[in-house]
């Protein structure tokens, strides 16, 4: 929180209870533009709830979520996406009945005026541009060879990459990733890390929720630790690694690495 | 005051029919997750159980009519009367209540056969396909009934003892103006009885508890090693029996015809949605509520202000409820939404 002018996303005093369970208590978070922030924490710490609050899937009881100064509270998911927030889900959310290319193109359309055109020529022209861009991202993520296949037939790892492509083609200002490498082989994980690093070079802000400490320490600029719905530590990767409270919360955790 | 009580009673017994059908619909939704458009057909089949029994009981022989002496006249006399005399006549007169005994095994059989023969293959299909296949089944059942019994309504008398009117006013000590058909009162009591029985069954028997638990969280119950599916099959049978009995008892009120099921089905769906999909108390509450509303909307005082309101009141209320309380009166979150 060195320079408040460059902070693009912040969560202020967010609380959320389900039934009697305090899922989030007084969560504060501020992410600078271009930063990659990792949120780690043991199972049930409230990480997914936090992400759901960010995209408007769950409304917080109290507190505000702001993106570039605008409050996200009460906004619909599509509205939040249009502001420039894209999300990769824990279980891949894709269009199983459409081809990979169509999956990506649909996402690309939402950022442009691409609804309904009478003239086939005009439609073709607009589509060609989107087509090339979509193919570019499919190639980037090594799934271009399946471009014409139905997304339902992909392996789980490929589905994740497809979803990532769908988010990237939208050029979001903030990308939220919910365990982007869960269920991937080591090789695929490394490949995904490379891709995410590449995006980082382009200056895209990211928030990553991740279990795999290898991924976290390869990518994160700063790390926040969530335990029992509260942020118990925040800092540079090295600081967090040596933090006693964090080690306690994980009960000698970090065994992934 | 008199008119008020009368309309209230009218509404209650109409509501009783709605509630009984909606209860079965909701049971099937909640347990099997199936949207059963053939549920109205089950109601209709129940009614035709009564028609069938009446036909059987009144199987007749031509006999000489002794009361006409000028020439040889013949009349139809049911075998029952020939064999048992007065007792036979009484049995025929009581054919509707007797049909209840027939309807239970018949409807249970039909329900189980329907679930095992068709519905079970549709658990994994989309709701749209469930709706479509049960819609098709409803058409088939209704056309079969039509080809056997014709298209005209068949009058079904209530037993003479119960076909008069009950002096409700005298019971309540408010004069003798308010009188109400006995049979309708019985229908109302009957619907309370059945609804009560279903709730007691679900609440206090272990069987019912498993079913309720299965409605909440099927996977967990299955993990406990309980065969939920078989119990749900029985639940389908019970829903069929409830619908069938409601149909039997309804015959003296409105003469049954082959499309009575469809007419009731649409309204019952509205009832279920208003009550909240998957909520049994919601279905019962909404059933009675809409019945009463409809009854009051059809009084002349109201109709003078809003002509035709009785025809559309239920739909209007349904719309308002759904727009203001999207999950219905007592609905649970996320039920049947995806």
């Amino acid at each position, binding site marked *: 929180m060195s320079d408040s002018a460059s902070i693009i996303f912040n969560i202020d005093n967010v609380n959320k209870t389900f039934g009697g369970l305090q899922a989030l208590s007084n969560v504060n978070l501020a992410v600078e533009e271009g930063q990659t922030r990792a949120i780690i924490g043991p199972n049930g710490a409230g990480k997914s709830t936090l992400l759901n609050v960010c995209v408007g899937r769950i409304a917080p009881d109290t507190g505000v979520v702001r993106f570039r100064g605008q409050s996200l509270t009460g906004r619909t998911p599509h509205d939040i996406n249009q502001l420039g927030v894209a999300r990769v889900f824990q279980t891949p959310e894709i269009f199983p009945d459409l081809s990979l290319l169509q999956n990506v193109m649909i996402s690309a359309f939402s950022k442009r005026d691409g609804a309904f055109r009478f003239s086939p020529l005009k439609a073709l022209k607009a589509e060609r541009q989107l087509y090339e861009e979509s193919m570019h991202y499919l190639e980037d993520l090594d799934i271009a060879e399946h471009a014409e296949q139905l997304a339902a037939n992909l392996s789980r790892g490929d589905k994740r990459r497809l979803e990532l492509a*769908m988010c990237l083609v939208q050029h979001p200002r903030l990308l939220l990733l919910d365990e982007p490498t869960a269920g991937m082989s080591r090789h695929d994980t490394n490949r995904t890390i490379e891709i995410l690093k590449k995006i980082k070079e382009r200056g895209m802000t990211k928030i990553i929720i991740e279990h795999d400490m290898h991924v976290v320490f390869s990518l994160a600029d700063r790390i926040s630790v969530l335990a029992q719905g509260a942020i118990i530590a925040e800092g540079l990767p090295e600081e967090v690694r040596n933090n006693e409270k964090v080690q306690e919360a994980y009960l000698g955790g970090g065994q992934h690495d | 005051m008199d008119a008020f009580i009368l309309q209230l009673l009218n509404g209650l017994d109409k509501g009783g029919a709605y509630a009984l059908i909606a209860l079965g619909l909701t049971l099937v939704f909640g347990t099997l997750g199936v949207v059963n458009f053939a549920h109205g057909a089950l109601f209709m089949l129940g009614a035709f159980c009564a028609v069938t029994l009446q036909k059987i009981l009144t199987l007749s022989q031509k006999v000489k009519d002794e009361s006409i002496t000028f020439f040889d006249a013949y009349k139809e006399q049911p075998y029952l009367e020939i064999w048992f005399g007065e007792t036979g006549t009484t049995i025929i007169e009581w054919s509707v209540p007797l049909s209840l005994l027939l309807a239970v095994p018949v409807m249970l059989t039909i329900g189980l056969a329907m679930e095992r023969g068709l519905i079970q293959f549709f658990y994994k299909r989309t709701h749209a396909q469930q709706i479509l296949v049960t819609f098709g089944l409803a058409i088939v059942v209704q056309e079969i009934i039509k080809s056997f019994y014709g298209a005209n309504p068949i009058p079904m008398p209530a037993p003479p003892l119960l076909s008069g009117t009950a002096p409700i006013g005298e019971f309540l000590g408010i004069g003798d103006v308010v009188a109400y058909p006995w049979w309708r009162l019985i229908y109302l009591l009957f619907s309370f009885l059945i609804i009560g029985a279903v709730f007691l069954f679900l609440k206090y028997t272990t069987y019912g508890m498993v079913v309720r638990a299965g409605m909440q969280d099927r996977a967990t119950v299955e993990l406990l090693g309980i065969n939920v599916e078989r119990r749900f099959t029985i639940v389908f049978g019970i829903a069929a029996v409830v619908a069938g009995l409601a149909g039997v008892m309804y015959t003296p009120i409105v003469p049954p015809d082959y499309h009575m099921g469809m007419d009731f089905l649409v309204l019952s769906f509205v009832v279920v949605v208003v009550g909240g999909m998957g909520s049994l108390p919601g279905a019962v509450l909404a059933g009675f509520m809409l019945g009463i509303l409809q009854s009051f909307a059809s009084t002349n005082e109201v109709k003078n202000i809003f002509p035709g309101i009785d025809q559309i009141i239920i739909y209007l209320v349904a719309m308002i409820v759904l727009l203001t309380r999207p999950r219905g009166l007592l609905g649970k979150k996320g039920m049947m939404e995806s």
Partner: protein
Amino acid sequence: MLLSSRSELRTLLIFAAVVLMMPIWLLPLGAAYPDLLQKFAIFGIFVIGYNLFFGLTGYLSFGHATFLGVGSYAAVWCFKLLTVNVLPAIVFGILVSGFFAAVIGFICLRRSGIYFSILTLALAQMCYSLAYSVLTPITNGETSLQMEAHDARLLDSWIAPHVGDGLPITHLFGIPMSGYPGFYFCAVILIISFWFSIRIFNSPFGLQLRAIKSNQERMQYSGYNTRIYLFSAFLISGMYAGLAGSLMAAIDPLAGAERMQWTASGEVVLMTILGGVGTLIGPMLGVGVIKYFENIFSSYNHDALLESFSFLPQPLAEALTFVVSPFVGEGWHLTLGILFMLVVIFLPGGIMEGVDRIRARFSRHKQPQQTEQTT
């Protein structure tokens, strides 16, 4: 990928040729008379519209007959008040049913899944009750709305007062809208409607609708306000139904409430499913099959059956008649119900899925020999 306009044009031309030549190639099937041909065309338009909504978005509407009925009423009123030329009536029919579709769509699309289906069903029943009894001054209730000799027909009487006692005949700039001219008029509109539907199917809009069917939540998280897309599709398909309804009135200037009953909505669902939901021409095959067999089956009765089996020995003929007769004539709906159930159970993709399966089997057998002949 999304579209190649040449193949679209080819599809359209083939379709146009097939439709316009129906009077010729349906001759051997005994179906080439104007009444039935008009039905094919009008219900064709109806299902094209229905399929645009149900087929693409997966939202099962049980209320589309409402728009059909509203279109008919609007058209007949246009005949009564303005002119018996069918063109203004059709425009008016589309607009009024579009208005109804907007209102009903706005309400119903607040919910999804079976809630949506039941809401459309409830609203449709409400409209039916309104038309059947409450709004009798507008709809003429049970007796159906018809043209009458003393109708105003402002435009007509301004141009050339109607002479004689008889009712004027609906026409398109002088061409009477009955018999073959009526069919060709409907056929042309069918072809235009079909072209429009190809365009929607192949446009990004169509793709977006299919994406909503596939995963609505992802659509929302990708920045789409899905309700607006659904609403547009519902509106378009309601206007299609209104167009079909006003054409019905143009051919035969009569509008009755039974056209709006929910069983009528059920019929359009049936035709769409039977042919193949979400395919371009499947639903129209469904119309063809259902309307054709309805025509043939419902005309048979016991005696006609006996006669057609007369080539068999008499006891056999009688036995066959006994078996078959519940399924024809009055019993046609039974046949339809059974057919429909069989399709939903075994062939959810309808006739089109059947064709695909047969083709797949066929090509698998043939493949070793003729690998070159692939298109």
